[in-house]
């Protein structure tokens, strides 16, 4: 079966207006208005579907782990914790509470928050740069952030200390690729693929600096930084969840406010200006928000690629390119993708594999499929 046809079929099912027929006495305009409402409703249904998928995945993931605890017991424990009825004398209950609430839940929440942040950033970036290949990973922004975070962690080069210091460092260094990209697009106007090749070059440069830094650092620390930097959500605790959660969710909210503007940018700078959009200023603001999101996430989880790249493309198949719907849909799908990768990682590969690798191995082929099946010319 031709993949292109399969995608078209999904698109066809996705637009219920095909089944609409003009009623008697209905004017053209009324018919179109009805079609529009139906299309809007089907998009909302898809989002509801994504939410349902998300809940199922979340519900399943939290019951997975090497510690032996039954499916129902997991929920009992959660309930007991929320209602404050854990029996302090029951060692088993205390232990279950620790594993489910203090160990598994932060991991799951991190996965979700990372998925939301990266997917939103990816969707915004693709619209803003008119580049279907853009996301914080492929443009080198994540690598810059990682370098900054590692500098703070291994060499103790802080501007401010503590977790916020790490994020701040990461942000400062994430701006380097961001500024480079903005300057390059104004100056040379490269094609989408070209821009990403530049981003990958930036990524390799930062990776080189990073490797050097780790060679010079203490070997034990270096090994653990290396494994962390590939992309790991298994290291976060409740202490870190508020920071990473707030940055990710606030970043999502900020980008959501800009979605109408992002829609207009899609038609080209000239037309966007004619709609009243200060194109240069919007681009800078958008990149700053994206850098903050990338910095916040990378500082705690290392580099997780492909989520920001693939989620918008999949979401676009179902809900179209209107960013006001696409951004939340991408965010949902990003969270789902993270959960799926984590589940697959546990069930098939074993819990030791970093999620950054799983997202590459799963996200990569999916992205290639999407690329090959694209029937329109975007390049």
């Amino acid at each position, binding site marked *: 079966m031709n993949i292109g046809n399969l995608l078209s079929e999904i698109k066809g099912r996705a*637009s219920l*207006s095909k089944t609409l027929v003009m009623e008697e006495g209905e004017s*053209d*305009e009324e*018919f*179109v*208005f009805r*079609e*529009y409402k139906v*299309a809007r409703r089907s998009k909302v249904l898809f989002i509801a579907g994504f939410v349902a998928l998300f809940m199922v995945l979340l519900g399943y993931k939290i019951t997975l782990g090497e510690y032996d605890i039954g499916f129902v017991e997991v929920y009992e424990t959660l309930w007991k914790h929320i209602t404050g009825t854990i029996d302090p004398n029951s060692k088993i209950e205390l232990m279950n509470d620790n594993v489910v609430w203090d160990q598994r839940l932060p991991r799951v929440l991190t996965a979700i928050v990372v998925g939301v942040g990266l997917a939103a950033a990816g969707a915004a970036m*693709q*619209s803003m740069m*008119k*580049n*279907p290949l853009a996301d914080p990973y492929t443009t080198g922004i994540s690598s810059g952030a990682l370098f900054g975070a590692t500098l703070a962690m291994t060499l103790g080069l802080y501007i401010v200390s503590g977790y916020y210091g790490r994020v701040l460092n990461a942000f400062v260094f994430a701006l380097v690729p961001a500024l480079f990209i903005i300057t390059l697009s104004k100056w040379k106007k490269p094609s989408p693929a070209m821009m990403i090749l530049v981003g990958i070059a930036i990524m390799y440069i930062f990776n080189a600096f990073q490797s050097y830094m780790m060679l010079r650092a203490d070997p034990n620390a270096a090994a653990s930084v290396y494994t962390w930097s590939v992309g790991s959500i298994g290291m976060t605790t409740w202490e870190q969840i508020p920071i990473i959660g707030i940055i990710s969710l606030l970043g999502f909210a900020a980008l959501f406010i800009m979605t*109408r503007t992002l*829609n*207009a940018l*899609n*038609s*080209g700078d*000239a*037309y966007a*200006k*004619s*709609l*009243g*959009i*200060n194109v240069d200023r919007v681009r800078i603001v958008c990149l700053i928000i994206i850098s903050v999101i990338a910095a916040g996430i990378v500082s705690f989880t290392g580099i997780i690629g492909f989520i920001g790249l693939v989620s918008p493309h999949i979401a*676009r198949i179902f809900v*179209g*390119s*209107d960013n*006001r719907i696409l951004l939340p849909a991408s965010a949902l799908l990003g969270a789902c993708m993270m959960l799926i990768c984590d589940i697959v990682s546990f069930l098939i590969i074993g819990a030791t594999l970093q999620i950054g690798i799983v997202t590459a191995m799963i996200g990569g082929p999916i992205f290639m499929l999407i690329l090959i099946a694209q029937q*329109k010319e*975007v390049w």
Partner: protein
Amino acid sequence: MTVKIEAKGLGLGYGDIRIWNDLNLEIAEPGLVGILGPNGVGKSTFMYALNKILEPTEGTVYLGGQDIRYMDYKDVAKTVAYVPQQSNETFAMSVLDTVLMGRYPISGFTTSEEDVKVAIRCLKMMNLTDLAMRNFNELSAGQHQKVMIARGLAQEPQILMLDEPTSNLDIYHQVYVMKLLRDIAKEQGIIVLVICHDLNVASRFADRLILLSNGAIVADGTSKEVITAENIKNVYGMDAEVVESDGRPYIIYHVDESVRMGESPAYEKKEVP
């Protein structure tokens, strides 16, 4: 209410290259105004200067008496709608969603039912209602142009600027789009500025024509005043005969069979002073 367009001493150059020098223009009456001129004379750029997409090197543009340099993009957008020459969508939406984009300067964050109704009405004007839910990318170049015109109309502007809106349309649609634009200009009392390549179609429908050549306005007035054999010869380097029909001048070209390919046309040899 007509918003007056005024340009004073407009000049534009890139480095050593001069595009135009000291252009002066005033459009105060509603109606269809055509901008004519040979390739590369800077018609599109002229339009960019009039709607703030581009900043001129010298001179000032006034919209409704206000200096455009001190206006915010948003304020300009409330008055001026721009229809680009080509569509440049990376991620295409449905045709209706694309037209709804024209409502952004007017509507809030969400699209209201009123916005949708206006957009559908504009689609109806361009005879595109059965394509409303189709993806923009699936359409032909001519249909793209019609959608973009509908998008400009949806903005309900006081000034509508269109850059070669009929270049991909067949003769039937060329004629009827120009007629539609003229009718809208009259009915709504707005200025419709059109860059046009087809002299005859422009002549037939425009209330006023502005002919650009070599970085200056060579002729400005009604069709009868602008479309003359002399102007055509000077500006385009072609021999032509002007004939009248429906009260408007029409051009019949005389082709010089002795001209060989590779010889640049007369007007390209001149330089901007």
